[in-house]
């Protein structure tokens, strides 16, 4: 099986090398959506595991971003207008290209962001722009912002933090 190193991360996310960031895990088989929900044992995707009761896009849809909006509403988020830090809220930024979901990042209390980059590493990144043009979706940009009250945060939410040299 192929093995991946941080150089593969920089290859797939070419803007990252020029942006402030810190890699925090090895590659693993959970995705960005599961990571945002604090789950490192799931792969939350319409084509894999999708919560019961949440509409799932079929293969012939023209776009799937509205379904991800519904998914995160199911997780307790509401749409907001911008990614600016608000003390009482956790924010997420959904990256999309022409209505197709590509990535989601979550804001930390410091204001910087955390992401799981595809199947690759988890990382902190100061700016959302660091992951623009992610993966194959070369034109993906932060498109939709949502927020959830910090009082609604699951008590058991935690992320792995394995700081690697950068």
């Amino acid at each position, binding site marked *: *099986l192929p093995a991946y190193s941080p150089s593969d991360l920089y290859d797939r996310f070419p803007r990252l090398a020029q942006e402030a960031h810190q890699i925090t895990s090895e*590659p693993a088989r959970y995705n960005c959506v599961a990571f945002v929900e604090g789950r490192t044992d799931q792969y939350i995707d319409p084509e*894999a595991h999708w919560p019961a009761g949440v509409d799932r896009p079929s293969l012939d849809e023209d776009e799937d971003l509205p379904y991800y909006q519904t998914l995160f509403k199911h997780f307790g988020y509401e749409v907001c207008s911008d990614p600016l830090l608000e003390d009482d809220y956790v924010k997420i930024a959904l990256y999309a290209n022409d209505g197709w979901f590509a990535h989601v990042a979550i804001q930390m209390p410091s204001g910087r962001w955390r992401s799981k980059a595809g199947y690759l590493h988890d990382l902190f990144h100061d700016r959302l722009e660091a992951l623009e043009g992610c993966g194959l979706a070369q034109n993906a940009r932060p498109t939709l912002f949502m927020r959830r009250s910090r009082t609604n945060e699951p008590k058991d939410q935690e992320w792995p933090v394995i700081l690697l040299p950068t």
Partner: protein
Amino acid sequence: VSSPALIEIETERLIEDEPSSWYEGSAMPATDEALVSSAYAVKDTKEPRRDDSQDRAEFDLIADELASATVGLGSLRAATRHPAYGEILAMGQRAVPFLLERVEDPIQGPLWMRLLGSLIGFPPMLRMDTVADAAEAWRIWGHAFDSFVR
């Protein structure tokens, strides 16, 4: 051996016809016993076994290309649009034993489960909540398929 043009046409057809019935779960066995029985049923429809070294070489080449091209993606939907994804679907039953070997891939397991789900007609995660449980379910299914251990 199919000509490149024929492979291309067949790939397009398979992508177009890719079953989405697993969304509704109509094809998913309800019990473990039914799951194992279904594996035997699929096995019974297999073509006669042959030297698969050429199939393996073909599969590994395509699968490694797909893995590398999609490792940065956060969505399986995007991965299904890569040409190599359709090429594995076009391999049909010949790809199943090799996909079963990859379901416990610690990095891209969900990708191989998605392909298996399409080829077999089951939900990719076999209705399991976690990736680890889904990999274990596919491993059990693979044993019944009698192609997992080679």
